[in-house]
């Protein structure tokens, strides 16, 4: 559709303003990570690399970072397997209760984190399962399943059955068909889902607080650091690092998922 130049300009300006809105608070985090003073008062008092130095040496921060990484990897792996299996099941078969699966899968992410967190942690306590790293992974996996599931099933709906049937007609067994036909077709959707699930798990706070039982993921470290006066400036450094680290994977994920989007005609 062709808009007039005026329309495009107006949209462009609005977009710019919105991008500004999105990035000013982020920019602030950058600025304060170099703030010479140790208070969050405005304006910042001067520039220094001091906090970066302290942050690099802070073992608790490094440990929290690694813990978050490990938990996100675990949760994403589980979500990948379960989400893809469910997507294949729902898209390729007709059965009673098919719609409900999509509905139930969305629940962990739609219901408030506090409810999920309270439910899981209380159940764990009652059946004597320990809180901690595995509990965090379980909690995260639960709401990451739907992300992989949605991406996979959206793609599966676009990939026709007939290719898989042809493969079976030609004598390929289930595993071969999956390996050579289905998997390559949904691979990029799975990857996009996995990256999004990873991001969600990495930054999750509320469910994690309930399941952590003393284990410190990065968000928990940040949460606790805000309550300790001396750690507050370090948090800004942690935030900047997380943002910088995310740019490349996000870019890759975007390219992968967009390359598979159908053309507009």
């Amino acid at each position, binding site marked *: 559709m062709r808009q007039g130049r005026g329309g495009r300009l107006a949209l462009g300006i609005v977009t710019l303003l919105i991008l500004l809105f999105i990035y000013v608070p982020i920019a602030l985090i950058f600025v304060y990570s170099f703030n*010479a*003073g*140790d*208070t*969050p*008062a*405005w304006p910042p*008092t001067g520039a220094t690399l001091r906090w970066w130095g302290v942050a690099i040496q802070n073992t608790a921060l490094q440990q929290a970072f690694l813990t978050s990484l490990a938990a996100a990897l675990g949760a994403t792996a589980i979500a990948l397997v379960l989400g893809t299996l469910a997507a294949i099941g729902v898209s390729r078969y007709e059965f009673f209760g098919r719609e409900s699966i999509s509905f139930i899968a969305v629940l962990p992410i739609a219901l408030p984190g506090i409810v999920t967190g309270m439910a899981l*942690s209380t159940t764990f*306590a*009652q059946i004597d399962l320990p*809180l901690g790293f595995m509990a965090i992974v379980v909690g995260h996996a639960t709401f990451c399943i739907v992300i992989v599931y949605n991406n996979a099933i959206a793609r599966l709906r676009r990939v026709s059955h007939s290719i898989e049937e042809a493969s079976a007609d030609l004598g390929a067994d289930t595993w071969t068909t999956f390996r050579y036909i289905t998997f390559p077709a949904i691979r990029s959707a799975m990857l996009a889902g996995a990256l999004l699930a990873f991001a969600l798990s990495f930054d999750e706070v509320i469910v994690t607080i309930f399941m952590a*039982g*003393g284990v410190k993921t990065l968000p928990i470290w940040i949460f606790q650091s*805000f*309550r*300790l*006066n*001396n*750690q*507050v400036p370090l948090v800004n450094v942690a935030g900047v690092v997380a943002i910088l680290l995310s740019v490349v994977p996000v870019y890759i994920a975007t390219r992968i998922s967009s390359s598979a989007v159908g053309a507009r005609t």
Partner: protein
Amino acid sequence: MRGAKRLAALFAIALVATGCSGIGASPAPSMITSVGDGEGKLSVLAWPGYVEDGTTSPDVDWVTPFETETGCQVTVQTFGTSDEAFTLFQTNPEQYDVISASGDASLRLVAGGFVQPVNVDIVPSYAEIFPDLKDKDYNTVDGVHYGIPHGRGANILMWRTDEVTTPPTKWAEIFDPASPYAGKFSVYDAPIYIADAAVVLMASRPELNIKNPYSLDDTQFQAAVDLLKAQKPAVGEYWGDYTKQISSFQNGNTVIGTTWQVIANVLQSSDPPTPVEVVKPEEGSTGWSDTWMVNSKTKNINCAYKFLNHITSAPVNIQIAEYFGEAPGNSKSCALATNPDHCTIFHAEDTAYWTDVWYWTTPVADCLDGRTDVKCKDFAAWVEAWTQIKAA
């Protein structure tokens, strides 16, 4: 000792109730008779500022010497309110070996079976503790000691000297919705704060006849709740984390409110500093008196006892008292203060001062002021009311 008898009865009832629950309740183990070798680690749940190990500021550290001497590696977790501490203990019954509990948490911990009796005979520092901190209702039940007293302090009024033109002298000033600083009050975020409103009423409405701010019958309680509901629109922030109050004062969101001395100290020593002053208002104050208690399920009992002895010993106790801004519990510590006036300023040896400081205590239905003709509001009612006040 009548208070203790009543509490013992409550304790017994609670024990029976907890016997059916299964989580977190177990009969208190028998006390050890001598302190053996350390187990190598210790997990401490403490008020911020009590257990400093050099991470806040390199020269504020009384934990590393302990670790070197005993081999017990200490991990610290801080909390903002007594309720938070209690819930942490309740949901993680085996996580923390030692806790610094104020009077409004200590009895609940005992009643819930979360802490064990402490054999004060094998804690040498105990002998040096001020006599009027020993054998109190909140740390001794039926003659059994449940911890070592730490020290005491008052909640005080703080204001920004560059924003508040006339220095305040009464709590009533932050309960006045017509104040010029309305909208910028900073108020403690816990149900126990209702007692602060009661303290104001003790002076401003003597006809209510409030004798103890934790002992409120229906009329008195309603008056306190009404006062707090009237205050709410003028409150800029309810703080449960002391850092929240610090950043609010630094940013100018709040300019006057209830605080702890340590917060004022941090504000004055930050870079850039925030100009604040403090005062203990005319009506008196709520306050706290803390006890170091030991988890009934601890696996590090020897480290726990060593820690208790260390943290309440004279040289360490005075360091904490000066850092946090409170009166030390160890009577021999005043002589060791860096600031020779510290104990005078904080009235460590002045019993008269503490007569109008009301230590945090858990309210119970049997009135704490001794009345038997009425029932007082219990803790559940306080919690309920606090939700209503904040949601107004």
